[in-house]
């Protein structure tokens, strides 16, 4: 995939290799991990040739760091998800081991896809940290941490609180949240059943392989039937072993669906940010309203709102007019400030909604295209499986006929 960005030239990104390594972790213990080679090539406009400009090794945790950074700095963007950390939705033959070569291979592809998604995003591709991720091997982690993004991150508790107490979130975001919940639930279900179907299909194919062996042994005692049996048995073996490739292809299809399963979480993150901002706004407005009220009461002498000062005044005696003046002045200043803040929060909120919604529209188009393509590729896989089946059984039938 090629696209314009930081480099002022079209570039190609690939995660081309995976390697097992050992090293020491944060607690100074030996650990084994997999490192992935990321190669960046810039493409010359004139002749389309690509030149290797950068190549470095990264491990999964560094990808996670990159993503967490992007989540904080681009809360209005639906940030592409990473491939799964641990193998899920496995069926009996598939290994759940992170070190398993097939899992590593699928993860390699998933990580490449992740980088390509970022590189093709109109906003994310311009990010400096992303650029450095691809070009600066050493010190990159320190650079990211120096941005202090962890401090800027919203606390989970705060976000949760906001979700429950926000009064007037934009309806589109509420709908989006429901959509993402449904998407997550239905894709999970689909992947679970698909895994079971794969398991059963594997069984059907593999048992036929037993025919191969028995036919072969039987053919030894048969004169006329022998040849037919023997060659039919061979086709049964071919049939039985064909399922491995078929299911490997299907695993890629499952990965495509998984990406959108994880995208659901990214969508929810944007919704949460909106809720947080909206809640903040509502709180600020409420606070402002209450201060205005207080001010008014002080000015007119009526006490309708509760205030500590008011209580103590009641208990310990009236305050002097000077004191009251001072308080009113303080409040008026606060109200001014508050109004400024409210204005800017409002602006921020509207900007956020506008930008977020633009990205969501972009995401929707991407999702529709990708899912449609995935479903079509599933059909193509089925077609290929059927064609193989027809061929094998036609051959077997010929052999049976000859018996």
């Amino acid at each position, binding site marked *: 995939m090629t696209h314009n960005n930081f480099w002022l030239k079209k570039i190609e990104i690939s995660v081309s290799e995976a390697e097992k390594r050992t090293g020491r972790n944060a607690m100074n213990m030996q650990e084994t991990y997999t490192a992935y080679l990321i190669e960046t090539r810039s493409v010359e406009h004139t002749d389309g040739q690509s030149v290797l400009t950068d190549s470095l090794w990264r491990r999964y945790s560094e990808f996670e760091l990159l993503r967490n950074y992007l989540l904080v700095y681009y809360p209005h963007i639906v940030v592409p998800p990473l491939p799964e950390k641990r193998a899920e939705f496995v069926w009996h*033959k598939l290994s759940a081991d992170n070190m398993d070569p*097939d899992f590593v291979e699928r993860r390699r592809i998933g990580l490449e896809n992740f980088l390509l998604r970022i590189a093709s995003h109109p906003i994310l591709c311009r990010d400096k940290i992303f650029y450095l991720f691809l070009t600066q091997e050493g010190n990159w982690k320190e650079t990211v941490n120096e941005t202090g993004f962890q401090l800027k991150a919203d606390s989970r508790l705060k976000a949760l609180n906001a979700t429950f107490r926000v009064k007037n979130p934009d309806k589109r975001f509420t709908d989006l949240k429901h959509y993402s919940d449904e998407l997550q639930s239905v894709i999970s279900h689909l992947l679970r059943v698909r895994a079971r*179907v794969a398991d059963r299909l594997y069984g059907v194919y593999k048992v036929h392989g*037993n025919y191969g062996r028995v036919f072969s042994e039987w053919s030894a005692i048969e004169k006329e039937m022998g040849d037919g049996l023997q060659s039919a048995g061979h086709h049964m073996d071919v049939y039985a072993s064909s399922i491995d490739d078929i299911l490997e292809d299907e695993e890629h299809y499952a990965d495509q669906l998984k990406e959108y399963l994880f995208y659901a979480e990214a969508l929810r993150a944007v919704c949460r940010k909106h809720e947080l901002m909206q809640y903040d706004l509502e709180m600020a407005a409420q606070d402002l309203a209450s201060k205005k009220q207080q001010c008014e009461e002080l000015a007119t002498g009526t006490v309708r709102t509760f205030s500590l000062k008011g209580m103590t005044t009641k208990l310990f005696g009236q305050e002097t007019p000077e004191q009251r003046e001072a308080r009113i002045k303080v409040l008026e200043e606060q109200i001014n400030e508050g109004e400024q803040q409210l204005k800017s929060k409002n602006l921020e909120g509207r900007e956020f909604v506008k930008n977020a919604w633009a990205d969501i529209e972009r995401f929707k188009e991407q999702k529709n295209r990708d899912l449609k393509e995935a479903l079509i590729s599933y059909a193509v896989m089925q077609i290929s499986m059927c064609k193989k089946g027809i061929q094998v059984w036609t051959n077997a039938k010929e052999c049976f006929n000859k018996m």
Partner: protein
Amino acid sequence: MEGERRASQARSSGLPAGGADGDSPGGSAPFPGSSGSSALLQAEVLDLDEDEDDLEVFSKDASLMDMNSFSPMMPTSPLSMINQIKFEDEPDLKDLFITVDEPESHVTTIETFITYRIITKTSRGEFDSSEFEVRRRYQDFLWLKGKLEEAHPTLIIPPLPEKFIVKGMVERFNDDFIETRRKALHKFLNRIADHPTLTFNEDFKIFLTAQAWELSSHKKQGPGLLSRMGQTVRAVASSMRGVKNRPEEFMEMNNFIELFSQKINLIDKISQRIYKEEREYFDEMKEYGPIHILWSASEEDLVDTLKDVASCIDRCCKATEKRMSGLSEALLPVVHEYVLYSEMLMGVMKRRDQIQAELDSKVEALTYKKTDTDLFPEEIGKLEDKVECANNALKADWERWKQNMQNDIKLAFTDMAEENIHYYEQCLATWESFLTSQTNLHLEETSEDKP
């Protein structure tokens, strides 16, 4: 020898994890667990004790049955059977047509049993009429088989379906079991009818034509229980002695039978297992399609695509169902019959050996005991005739049986292959039409965008 050559070509080890010929497709390493699990599948198939299908008569869902002119299926009247292709290599016209149908339950104070209606249509002179209808129960079939074995000890009598199921059956008389048995009994009688010698057996005729009371009184005649027991004792004794002088051709026959028995039993297990796996696949597939419909409810732009995928999956599901029924229709009964046949054959070999043993022991006695030898030569002469008769009968029947076996097996497996081809063709058509409709839609959309 041909047989040996083939034996050396036969693959020695079990199922390889990758490809059959070593040309493993794709670059990926074989999955770590795969050789273990395929061996497991083999082990599961071979393990006699664990396999729950061991002694079960395969179950079939009668509702899935497909009508097929080769099967001893259903109420094709005997006359319409004239139009059926003969499944045995009999020359000329059949003149004896038998159907077994209408199982009925009878309850008495002592027991409950099932009877089957047997209709016979014939043009043979020795039959008093051209059409007969009687009711028989399984016991009667057992009796008939016993009589045939008695009269023709070295002929290959067709097998009867098993008496009862040891494992996995709650009720002795569930519908599947009865239907399976009925078909097997139908096959049993027809095989006898098609046998050049057995078809003229007197007990067979009585079985087909006698009324219930006639049959009971006839059964009471003939060699009693004790003499039959005596025969059995002698047979066991002689088989324990071993046969020293078994002629070469019968040695070969015996070897064949042993190996054949092994192989056909394995094939029976494998076929049952395939049916089971296909059934479980079908069960999962049934759930798979509807999820796409569920999904389509939340996706405006993908509704059609998702619904189409769901309907493709459902159609493939139906095709799987059909494939399963084809398997249980064409393959399983045939393979199972030959499992029973192989047991039969071992019995036939024993009986032949026993007849020869009688001769051998008399000859031995003659060689060592010089007294009482006057009657021996005559007796020995008779026994020699008996042995020669038995051997010839067996030889002839053996050739006939082998020929039939080849045809039946060939047909059964060809049918299975046909079912699979048909299954994949159906699925292919389904998905291809989906693909076409998606591409057409795309073309329509893009052409609409153009100004």
